[in-house]
Structures are given as structure tokens and as C-alpha cells.
């Protein structure tokens, strides 16, 4: 194909505009691309009826919280060694959503991970010993073991796991609705990592 001079000239005239447009588009996309690359995975499960979100907490965050509540050093040191994950659950539906944490399973590539539940802490704290008021506050910061989430109710709390460096997968199921209309909803959240303190 032969190009006449006027055609080439016309092309060259539009070329700077095309290059400029590409540059602007690239620059505008850059922050999004950079954020996406550095962003932590969304530890979230979305269902039309409810949402589950996980937020791993660093040992410093946990220590700061309980220190501010007056917890003794010995207890803080123990808490720093746990893998704390704050769980937020929101019922988005007009039905009751049933949560039973006893069916939640945690696993790493090396095997299953046993959650440290309320019973664990209830029998552990007296061995320290930890004052009753601190035990009570600690219990309040844990996720309830079971709860019937009423329409539009949102509740949350912490779960504690042994601190591991590997990624953790959580599998669980919730039940939406009551009686014969009840629907069992399995959920899976992958690539959960125990949060580490920032390196100074």
C-alpha cells in the first residue's frame, strides 16, 4: 500500500495526540495498578444474604489494646504469641442467619489448625492467674461461639489460632433461614495470614 505525502503528513499530525492520550490513560491507571499489585488479599466472603470479613491483627495491635485495658504483662506476652483474627459478620437479609463457630475448620498446607476457643481460655487464665475482670473483658472481645444473626444485624469479635507462618484456609458453613426453608451455605476463605508487626 502506498501512502501519499498528504496522508503521511496527516498521520504525523495525529501521532502526537495519540501518544499523549496513551500517556494520560497509562498515568491515570498507574495508581490503580500499583495498588492492586501491593494490596493484601481481601479476606472476605460475600453471599447475597450475608457477609463474612476477616482482619488479622498484629501482635502490637493486640498488645496495645489489652495494655490499655490494664492487662498484666504476663497475659500480654501470651496474647502476643497468638494469631488474632477479627471477624465481622453482617446479615444482609430479612431472614435469620445462624453461625456456629464449632463447624469452622482452619488448615495450613502442613495440616489442620486447632482454634483456641472460649473453653481453652476459660481453663487457661486461672493457671496464670488472671483477674476475673480481665477474663471477662477478654471473653467480650472474642467472637460468640454461636449466634442467630437477626435481619440486618452485624456482630463481630476475635478468634485465636496458634501463630503460624503459612497461609491458612478457613472452611465453614452458615445456615440461612429457619425450618424447611433453611439453606446451608458453605464458605471458604483462603490465603489468611497471621499479621506480623511492621519492621522498624
Amino acid at each position, binding site marked *: 500500500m502506498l501512502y501519499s505525502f498528504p496522508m503521511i503528513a496527516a498521520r504525523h499530525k495525529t501521532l502526537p495526540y495519540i501518544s499523549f492520550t496513551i500517556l494520560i490513560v497509562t498515568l491515570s491507571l498507574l495508581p490503580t495498578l500499583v495498588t492492586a499489585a501491593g494490596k493484601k488479599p481481601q479476606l472476605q466472603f460475600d453471599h447475597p444474604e450475608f457477609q463474612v470479613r476477616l482482619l488479622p491483627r498484629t501482635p502490637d495491635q493486640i498488645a496495645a489494646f489489652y495494655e490499655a485495658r490494664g492487662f498484666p504483662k504476663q497475659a500480654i506476652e501470651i496474647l502476643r504469641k497468638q494469631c488474632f483474627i477479627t471477624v465481622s459478620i453482617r446479615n444482609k437479609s430479612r431472614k435469620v442467619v445462624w453461625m456456629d463457630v464449632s463447624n469452622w475448620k482452619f488448615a495450613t498446607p502442613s495440616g489442620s489448625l486447632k482454634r483456641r476457643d472460649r473453653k481453652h481460655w476459660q481453663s487457661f487464665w486461672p493457671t496464670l492467674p488472671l483477674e476475673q475482670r480481665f477474663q471477662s*473483658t477478654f471473653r467480650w472481645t472474642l467472637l460468640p461461639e454461636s449466634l442467630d444473626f437477626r435481619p440486618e444485624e452485624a456482630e463481630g469479635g476475635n478468634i485465636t489460632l496458634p501463630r503460624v507462618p503459612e497461609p491458612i484456609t478457613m472452611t465453614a458453613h452458615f445456615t440461612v433461614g429457619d425450618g424447611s426453608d433453611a439453606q446451608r451455605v458453605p464458605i471458604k476463605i483462603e490465603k489468611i495470614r497471621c499479621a506480623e508487626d511492621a519492621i522498624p
Partner: protein
Amino acid sequence: MCIQKKWKTLLKRTSALLLGLILVIPSLSIAGNLPKGIIEVDGRSAPALALNDIDGNAFDLISTRGRWVFVHFWASWCGPCRREMPAIQRLDKQLGTSGIELVLINTAEDEDTIFSFLSAVAPDLPTLMDIDGLATEKWQPRGLPATYLVDPQGRIRYQALGGRPWDSEAYLQFLQQLPTATPRPKSDTTGR
């Protein structure tokens, strides 16, 4: 004469019907249109609640029989409690002599923490202190904050889910209607 009699009977019946409606409407509106986040519970007896307030005065829930009681559990570390407390202080002022008593219970915090928190957020509100947190446990709240509405017979009738804008019109109207509303019979709805 006959027409006059008929009119009188009709007027009497209409008045009786209107009076009946006036008496029934408050309880119907409470049952059917609960404000967002308020759930009806089974009317179980309220657990014991005998604690001291921050000034050392003793309080026992039994002493409130005959009145509706707004029982509210809170802690200074709980975000929704912090956001809700100013609304409760305004509610306290707005309820005035409505016949509803506000009872606040701090869960497992010390006097200094409670004092510095309330003096900054809601200085006019008194609170009971559940120092070891055991009284709160007996009420089995779903989380903190937790609010229960206890009827004059000492039965839990309603429960609020999380923090609520208590001084807004819908909640205020609901609360103000409670002393005049006819208690509903036990239902199957269960709280936790």
C-alpha cells in the same frame, strides 16, 4: 323520634368503637412497627442485677418493679458503646417523667476508666459497676453494647441489637409508648 333514637345509638356505637381503637392502637403499633434493631423477646424473667454505682450506692433491679426499665450494658473499649452513649444521655433528658428508668451497667472496668470515659462522653449519666463482669454474663448479651427493656413485672420484653440512635423520633416514641401499652402474651420468639 325514632330517627333521633337511631342517631343516638349510632353515635354511642361510633364513640365506643373510636374509644376502643384509641386504646388498642398503641399496643398494635408497638407490636407491628418496632424501630430498626429492636426485637421482641420471650418475656423471660430478668436475671438478678444487684450492683453498686460509681458513688458506692447500692442498686437492685427488684426495686424497679412497677416501672419499665431500660437496662444497658457497656464498656469504654467498645466502639459502638462510645458512639451510642451521648444519645443515651440525651434520651435520659427527653424521657423525663415518662415512667421509664434508665439503668446503665459498665462491664468489667475499673472506677478510673469509667470515670474518665463518662466525664468526657456523657457526664450526666450514672452507671453501675459490674467489676468482675459476672452480672453481665448472667444476662447473656449478644455483644456489647446490649440493651434490654424490662417490663413492670420484671420480664424482658425487648432487646436492642447493637448501638441505636435512642434519642431519634422512632425510638423515643417507641419508648414513651411502653408505659401505656398493654403487654402482649408470651410469644415463641427467643432472644439468645
